[in-house]
């Protein structure tokens, strides 16, 4: 790893100042991707601004029908939060299957969605739950937030403070993990709420997380796994690598969607 200046921010405002004051600073929010990349010398930021110790953006708050999760909340905290488990067990289940225990105790929801890895779990939940991503500048709907492979609507210097979503009527997440990394080779988050049925797929699309509208249409009339029998995912635009071809992934999309609906 190249040498780097480490800064621990105690507030979001302070983090924003630290970020703009350095020549090539990166935000650190768990570092489960960034630190590994830096160790391999594939990234060389001049400064790191650590967000994980900012208390104002940590923790889960379930108030009435609305869930708020602070950006610096770890996956383990999301997985183990009792109030959240009562309101939306699907997201706790999702968080409990990210990586391994070490990853879950360091990695954060804000870090995961800002990185927008095409195989990360959280982006699918945000998209299916119709979540809103709150930054230090504005609020962005999940539909507008994830713009492509590792790309988000975030501008330079913009910091995610947290996410919020309405408690869904039904929701579930099913993933086929890569046995080594636990990244989703395909993961499908299904949610039924006031806005209808939303189905979001991660790990499969070449351009990152996406909504599977054919499945949404099929499920909006009949929310059962059999409603997906006649629907198939298009292999065009899906990832192909040594672990799975795009055809295989297309099949996984359908299988995981059916499992998610059955579990919801």
């Amino acid at each position, binding site marked *: 790893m190249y040498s780097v200046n480490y800064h621990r921010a105690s507030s979001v405002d302070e983090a924003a100042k630290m970020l703009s004051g350095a020549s090539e600073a990166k935000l650190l929010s768990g570092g489960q*991707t960034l630190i590994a*990349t830096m160790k*391999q010398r594939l990234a060389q930021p001049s400064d790191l601004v650590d967000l994980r110790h900012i208390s104002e953006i940590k923790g889960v708050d379930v108030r009435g029908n609305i869930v708020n999760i602070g950006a610096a909340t770890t996956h383990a905290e999301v997985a183990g939060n009792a109030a959240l488990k009562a309101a939306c067990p699907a997201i706790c289940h999702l968080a409990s299957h990210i990586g391994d225990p070490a990853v879950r105790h360091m990695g954060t929801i804000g870090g995961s969605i800002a990185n927008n890895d095409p195989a990360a779990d959280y982006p699918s939940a945000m998209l299916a739950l119709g979540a809103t991503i709150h930054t230090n500048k504005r609020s962005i709907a999940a539909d507008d937030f994830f713009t492509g492979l590792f790309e988000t609507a975030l501008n330079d210097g913009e910091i995610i403070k947290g996410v919020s979503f309405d408690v869904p009527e039904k929701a579930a997440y099913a993933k086929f993990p890569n046995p080594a990394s636990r990244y989703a080779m395909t993961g499908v988050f299904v949610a039924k709420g006031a806005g209808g049925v939303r189905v979001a797929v991660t790990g499969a699309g*070449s351009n990152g997380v996406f909504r599977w509208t054919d499945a949404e249409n099929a499920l909006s009339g009949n929310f059962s796994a059999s409603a997906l029998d006649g629907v198939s995912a298009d292999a065009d635009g899906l990832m192909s*690598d040594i672990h799975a071809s795009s055809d295989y992934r297309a099949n996984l999309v359908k299988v995981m969607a059916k499992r998610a609906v059955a579990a919801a």
Partner: protein
Amino acid sequence: MDLSGEYRIPASRERVWEFLNDPDILKQCIPGCEAIAKDGDDKFSATVVLRIGPMKVRFTGNVSLTDKVYPESYRISGEGSGGIAGHAKGGANVRLTQDGSETILNYSVDTHIGGKIAQLGSRLISSTSKKLADQFFGKFTEVASQSVSA
């Protein structure tokens, strides 16, 4: 890893050919290109910053134009080293077909990436290559269309 695609450019084939051979236009279109200098006929040296998610690697290398058949087709290929990160090699066969006052550009791209960046990024190479090819030819189409209407 192989990719192909097609773009339609509202300019004559001769104009498109000129653009494809202009280092300034290439610099604007090669994603992450910081500098490009002409080393000789159809040879350029270039510095390109490749970003894949958290990775940011600066490659220095050469770009050359070969198999030129005016104004129909050529091959643009590049080879670069990113130091400890690994190396990248790739090229695109480009074919131009006149269609009325417009030109249809067909390309097929092949890429080879080796070293650490390939080991760590293997699951991302095909998606990233597609994205970079789309960026290059998308931007090229945009630049070529603009300079015609200007």
